[in-house]
């Protein structure tokens, strides 16, 4: 097959890829937004003065860090219907990715809180600030800076993780790649290159944004 044929083939499959790309992007962004919220709540639980909250946060994080993502996805699509919830593969994937990534966000935030010099929290406490005031005004604003790079790599890992959802039938990029490659096995190479480009279109700008934030956070310190 000549080069122009290959180009035409890739051009023909562009709409399919575009649909997959949109699904991947929406899934990644929506899960990330959810994971930031879940992760923050979990992180506060894990450093809170209430021992039961700490235990609950720990149990959650341990479960979601030790069970493989694909297993969690299968648990969701096989078990949610048994609870009477009619959910699409996309909704299941979104739910699982939020919960799974939330655990990672929690650990990143907690590491950031631990990285704030102990003297800061101690000073706040000696001024009479409560736990939540301490977090809000002293610890979290400082932790936010150290946390930017890990949160960035969590997003990039999440973009790659959305591809696992293809195995439960979410029609995102990897799924579309698999379909196209099965239809035209001879074209695996150019197809892989094309799908790779689509992932890079998300991950490279994300990496760039993170490094921009990182530099700003460093300067303003």
């Amino acid at each position, binding site marked *: 097959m000549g080069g122009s044929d290959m180009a035409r083939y890739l051009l023909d499959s562009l709409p399919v890829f575009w649909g997959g790309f949109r699904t991947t992007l929406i899934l990644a962004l929506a899960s990330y937004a959810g994971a930031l919220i879940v992760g923050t709540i979990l992180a506060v639980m894990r*450093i*809170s*003065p*209430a*021992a*039961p*909250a700490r235990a609950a946060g720990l149990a959650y994080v*341990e*479960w979601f*860090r*030790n*069970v*493989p*993502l*694909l*297993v*969690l996805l*299968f*648990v969701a699509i*096989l*078990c949610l219907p*048994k*609870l*009477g919830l009619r959910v699409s593969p996309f909704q299941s994937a979104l739910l699982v990715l939020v919960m799974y990534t939330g655990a*990672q966000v929690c*650990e*990143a935030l*907690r*590491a950031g*809180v*631990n990285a704030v010099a*102990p003297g800061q*929290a101690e000073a706040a*406490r000696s001024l009479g600030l*409560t*736990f939540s005031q*301490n*977090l809000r005004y002293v*610890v979290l604003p400082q932790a936010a800076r150290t946390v930017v790079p*890990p949160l960035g*790599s969590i997003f*990039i*890992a999440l973009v*790659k*993780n*959305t*591809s*696992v959802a*293809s*195995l439960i039938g979410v029609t995102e990029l*990897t799924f579309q790649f*698999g379909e196209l*490659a099965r239809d035209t*096995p*001879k074209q*695996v190479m150019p197809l892989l290159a094309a*799908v*790779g480009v689509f*992932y890079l279109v998300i*991950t490279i700008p994300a990496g760039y944004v993170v490094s921009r934030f990182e530099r700003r956070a460093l300067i303003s310190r």
Partner: protein
Amino acid sequence: MTTVDTPPTRLSETVRHRATVLHDVPGPRARRRILIGTVLFVVVLAAFVGYVVVRLGRYGHLEQARWSYVLSPEILRYLGEGLLNNVRAAAVAGALTLVLGLFLALGRLSRRAVLRVPAVAWIEFFRGFPLVLLILFPYLLFPVYLTRIAAIWYVVIGLTLYNSAVMAEIYRAGILSLDRGQSEAAYAVGMTRGQALRLVILPQAIRRMVPLLLTQLIILFKDSTLGVAVTYPEALRRGETMGSFEPRVVFQAIIVTAVIFFLASFTLSRLVALIDRRVGR
């Protein structure tokens, strides 16, 4: 899939609890508030669990027969053999990545562009791809261009391509984290670059990175579940397809599978944490 490229800190640093700096030991008022919060939380949780149990019970998912079927020795052995297949793929890929990663890291740190450029290209390229794609790729490619091979090798190839890049970065971080005085001292006593690397730098760097390398091996083990994509008969595939020969236990089978994976991974993580504490300062 799980890999977040964490900065190469010691595991123990993130694990150690410093919560005590943030707040005092709870006093009587705080303890009362904690108690109220806990009770509320437990009530909500109990309501949710109650709903789940009632719902599952109504459709017979809690019948003892179904659970004892899944927990019978034959089925557990069937799943266990699947888990062994996970371990098999992960062990082969793990051994390959440990070696390949080291060479890639050395290549990336090399002063010769002939070695450095390909190493950097390999690392950046394979780190950027989703692992599923890297497993699907040989699976789709081999039958067309070469020959069909056993499913385990597709898994091994994908895991190796991806994790060699990740491992390389772990090794590199370990080498770079060493004090410069180490290599300077080695050169000062007349060692060549190769000798310094082999006798002074690598032994320390690798020792320092053992916990992170082991953590990555656990991730690799969990990622071997992606063998589902290429019909590799590992534990998840077995747990998931059990429903095709016994449709009544779809639910039980996947739950048991998840718990098996949790226990395996949790135990291994605990072991790594123990090792980390021993290796740590």
